[in-house]
């Protein structure tokens, strides 16, 4: 469970990127955070995986106050999460396999097990035939699927995706969110930051509306 209590974030005075955000996301939820550009979607996601610290407030992930975790121990939080970025953040000098294998190498999984799990995950995103390709040779949609495979290969409890369909055409975007939905069905909590109304209308179980850093609305369809 993710709990945000009265989160405030200021990058520069007098503007508040987040203003008194209080939110509870239960295990297994599928959440869309939406709002116009500059509404605070990315800031909110970044505070959850502790890329940035809020100016005020408290964030609990599975009961642990993540703001009190020492910098040198942040990896314990990150290992429970899979993070997908709009710009994919792939290593272009490494193969698709190497990119997806990184979260497993970090925790010291054996080579055979890595092969088995990477292959299985790439099968799920339908990229197993391009396992030994370099990401630069793949299309945008395929690159994003590599990034998703990397985020889910470790079976994380929480998947955070910041504008994962921002660069994709509607058909590919639909395909990508369908993938997230499947991982959600397998038990992962999924939080997606997006301003794609069409997608949100189609997939949104829970929708959080942000504007100028404030929560201006919530919808739950589940």
């Amino acid at each position: 469970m993710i709990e945000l209590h009265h989160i405030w974030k200021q990058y520069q005075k007098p503007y508040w990127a987040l203003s008194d955000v209080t939110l509870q996301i239960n295990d297994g939820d599928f959440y869309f955070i939406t709002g116009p550009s500059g509404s605070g979607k990315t800031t909110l996601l970044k505070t959850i995986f502790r890329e940035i610290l809020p100016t005020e407030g408290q964030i609990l992930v599975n009961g642990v106050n993540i703001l009190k975790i020492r910098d040198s121990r942040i990896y314990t939080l990150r290992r429970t999460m899979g993070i997908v970025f709009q710009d994919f953040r792939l290593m272009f000098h490494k193969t698709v396999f190497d990119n997806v294998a990184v979260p497993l190498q970090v925790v010291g999984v054996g080579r055979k097990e890595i092969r088995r799990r990477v292959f299985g995950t790439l099968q799920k995103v339908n990229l197993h035939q391009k396992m030994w390709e370099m990401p630069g040779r793949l299309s945008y949609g395929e690159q994003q699927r590599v990034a998703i495979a990397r985020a889910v290969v470790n079976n994380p409890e929480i998947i955070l995706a910041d504008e994962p369909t921002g660069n994709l055409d509607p058909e590919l975007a639909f395909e990508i969110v369908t993938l997230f939905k499947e991982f959600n069905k397998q038990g992962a909590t999924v939080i997606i930051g997006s301003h794609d109304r069409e997608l949100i209308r189609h997939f949104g179980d829970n929708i959080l509306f942000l504007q100028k850093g404030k929560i201006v609305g919530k919808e739950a369809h589940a």
Partner: protein
Amino acid sequence: MIEKLKFFLGATANNLWQFRTRNLFSVTIICLSFLTVGIFLMLTNNLRATARTLATNMNIAFYLDPKLPPETVEAIRQEISRPAFVESVTLVSPDEARERFRMSFPELADIAAGLKGNPFPPAFELRVAARASASKEVVAFVEGMKKRPGVTDVLFNQDWVEKMQGFSRLAGAIGAFLGGILILTSFFIISNVVKLNVFARKNEIEILRFVGGTNLFIRIPFWLEGIALGLLGSLLALALLFVVIQVFPLYLGASLGALQELLRFRYPSLPQALLLLGGGAATGWIGSATSVSKFLKV
């Protein structure tokens, strides 16, 4: 653990290959630095060994007045045989001295034969134990004997031993100074090369952080990279040093003449070679570690 080690070694090898041009540059600088240190180390070794040889073969010659009666000569023999550092005492008669001169300088034999009398004085040749050579005790003894009536002159090669020891110390100091400066340069170059590599892999480092990589996990490949660069550089320096040892006498041998033996380079000993390699690895590691901790805020 083994899996992680394999991963680190693989990542290091990849990184070394990926940035091979700048890595080659830093290996060359390390190599030249350690080659300089190695050459001076070799020179120091050589001068030390020469000084040791001179000291081991140290002889003192006491030239006597030719008119001395035999009992005075005997008294002098007993006097110079007394100290504990004396290994042997030999009396060289004027005839033996002339014969030695004839053998040592055959081109001057005519001159020696043309002389009416024998100008060579009798002498006592004294062999000093190696452990005591050029010691204060020996010097004091020689100084005392110089003043003894009946002894006209003393030939003592202590000056040479001292000079060689002095040269050896000087070479060591120059080596340490130049080597120190060059090693410091290598250290900064490695540090900057690793810094460039850190910047070039900023994206990768960020990804490692997001997927839960520990600080150590992110740093180890950079440390290994620094160690590998240092080790490669010093290994190359050692190989070049062996080439220099092989080629130097061939190149300069003929022109060196009597100095050939003096400048015959010796291979560095195993501990010295290991020290050079260890020094290279340590330089690489310190260079990369400082750079990583300074520029990799993880």
